[in-house]
């Protein structure tokens, strides 16, 4: 009886999440565009619903709500469905849409998308080989295999994103990095942009006029195609003396158009910076600035820990928050149930990180993989007692490996994004100094 009640609770919450995902999709992500294919929307909402249900199940496990066996059953079921969607449906539809965009293959859409999907499955499988995740006890199509592969991809992606985010977040929020932009700068840049546009226009006018006079003279405008065509146009230079001019002018126009695009992007960038400067002077801006400092310290700490983990070949058993609280408590000598509180706080922190990253990632389609991998990583952050059920469900996976892999990728991506941002930051002020 309790099983039925539990199931009904689960299903209701799933429907709620589905509706929420649908609304979110319509309102936030695609506010200004119209999505014609409802299939995409349905798949998105279903994936979203199931991912949220998994998250909910974790919460239930910690808080010990609902019957244990029914929880277990729902875990398994959810996992199966998510994996099914992830590995089978989503790649298939991605392939299908990509193929239908290429006009050539329009007729045999289905066939080509199946081919694409098979290639994807092949690479997906091959991915498993270099990593120590195959345990000889299980067969080929078992859940553990799929999860391990999905987990690897997801962990990689998440580490990449966290690394980038850890560096980008302080950079964006802290006003220390904001370049000083004056109105005169913007005006000068706009003037250059308009000048470039005028140059493009005058060249195009010449071309149009030339073409019209040629047309009126009755010459057939034959574009010199290929090698022989070009040689021909050179030799017949006297009557067609305007033709080589056209290709030359066209090249100049192309270069100028590229320049105008660059100038446009730079101007937009300057406007954005100016707005940020103004925003940082308001109260909200100052508040975020302060938070930015805090968060940047946390990010630096994470990078540091990742380095240490790799260098000293250690697997992170406790996360920084727990350690931080332990240290504080010991220092202040307060009677505090450390374990209880730290568990909740670290859990909330992980949740916040996931939610804020989910928002960014909901726009991409790798959300599903991301979610499975974040489950795996939550497991590392939770104290030992709660790990049993998750291990039981997810089978024997090498969790240590995952954590090590995460640290490596995190470090690599953080360092490369630091390098990238440094270069971008250096380059920008130089560009504006040039006349």
């Amino acid at each position, binding site marked *: 009886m309790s099983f039925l009640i539990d199931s009904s609770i689960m299903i209701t919450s799933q429907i709620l999440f589905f509706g929420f995902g649908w609304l979110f999709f319509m309102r936030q992500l695609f*506010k*200004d*565009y*119209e999505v*014609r294919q409802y299939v995409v929307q349905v798949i998105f909402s279903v994936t979203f619903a199931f991912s949220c249900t998994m998250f909910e199940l974790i919460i239930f496990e910690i808080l010990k709500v609902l019957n244990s066996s029914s929880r277990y059953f729902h875990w398994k079921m959810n996992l199966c469905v998510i994996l099914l969607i992830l590995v089978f449906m989503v790649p298939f539809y991605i392939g299908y849409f990509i193929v239908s965009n290429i006009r050539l293959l329009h007729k045999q859409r289905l066939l080509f998308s199946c081919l694409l999907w098979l290639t994807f499955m092949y690479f997906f499988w091959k991915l498993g080989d270099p990593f120590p995740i195959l345990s000889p006890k299980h067969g080929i199509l078992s859940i553990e295999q799929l999860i391990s592969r999905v987990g690897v991809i997801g962990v990689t992606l998440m580490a990449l994103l966290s690394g980038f985010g850890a560096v980008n977040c302080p950079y964006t929020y802290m006003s220390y990095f904001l370049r000083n932009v004056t*109105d005169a700068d913007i*005006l000068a840049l*706009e*003037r250059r*942009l*308009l*000048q470039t*546009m*005028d140059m*493009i*226009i*005058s060249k*195009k*006018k*010449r*071309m*149009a*006029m030339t073409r*019209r006079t040629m047309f009126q003279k009755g010459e057939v405008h034959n574009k010199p195609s290929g090698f022989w065509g070009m040689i021909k146009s050179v030799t017949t230079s006297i009557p067609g003396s305007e033709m080589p001019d056209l290709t030359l002018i066209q090249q100049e126009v192309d270069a100028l*158009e590229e320049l*105008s*695009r660059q*100038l*446009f*992007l730079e*101007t*937009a*960038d300057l*406007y*954005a910076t*100016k*707005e940020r400067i103004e925003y940082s002077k308001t109260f909200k801006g100052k508040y975020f600035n302060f938070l930015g400092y805090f968060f940047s310290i946390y990010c630096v700490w994470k990078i540091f820990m990742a380095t240490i983990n790799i260098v000293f070949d250690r697997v992170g058993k406790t996360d920084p928050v727990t350690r931080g609280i332990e240290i504080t408590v010991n220092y202040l000598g307060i009677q505090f149930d450390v374990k209880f509180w730290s568990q909740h706080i670290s859990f909330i922190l992980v949740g916040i990180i996931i939610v804020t990253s989910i928002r960014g990632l909901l726009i991409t389609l790798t959300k599903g993989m991301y979610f499975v991998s974040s489950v795996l990583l939550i497991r590392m952050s939770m104290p030992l007692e709660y790990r049993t059920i998750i291990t039981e469900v997810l089978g024997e996976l090498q969790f240590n490996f995952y954590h090590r892999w995460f640290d490596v990728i995190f470090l690599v991506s953080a360092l490369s994004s630091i390098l990238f941002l440094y270069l971008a930051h250096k380059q920008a002020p130089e560009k504006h100094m040039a006349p």
Partner: protein
Amino acid sequence: MASLDRVKVLVLGDSGVGKSSLVHLLCQNQVLGNPSWTVGCSVDVRLHDYKEGTPEEKTYYIELWDVGGSVGSASSVKSTRAVFYNSVNGIILVHDLTNKKSSQNLYRWSLEALNRDLVPTGVLVTNGDYDREQFADNQIPLLVIGTKLDQIHETKRHEVLTRTAFLAEDFNAEEINLDCTNLRCLAAGSSNAVKLSRFFDKVIEKRYFLREGNQIPGFPDRKRFGGGPLKSLHYD
């Protein structure tokens, strides 16, 4: 080389409706083979014979400024786009016949270009409630073009065309519906070509001829810092 007089026409519309294809068709008389995203603004030039067939025939350059982007862009992008809206003589509003939102967004586009800012909420005003007076005193000629006509099924065509007729009425403008991949849509002598020609004639008249008779001030320049130097830059 600018021995002929010139006229500036903006081509506005949502991303992907086919502005670049349209401009290419109008200026080069060719179908655009590989359309790609327009970053910033791309310009093309068309030679137009004003009052063709009469003794007063004169050729003008019509500059078609194809401004890329979407109405929901960040305000920094909007401010950057605003630099292209100076001293405009005509506006072509392009929407996709298969996509209703692009038609609705035309109101916001026209307001953005005409410098009367809509309140930045996400709520779009639909046909019925719209304040036509805002466009009644507008001096700049508008033209509404609907693209991708070939993708509308025969049975739905009537319903779509009625809707677009209302749209054009709201703007007090003519409308043309065509398919940018078909050269025959704008063949000389077809009704589309006639409407287009009439529109360009109207733009040229408003720019060059009404000035002398009727002292109607030109398009009021946007109030920006240093509006003066920018204006003198454009008129050679």
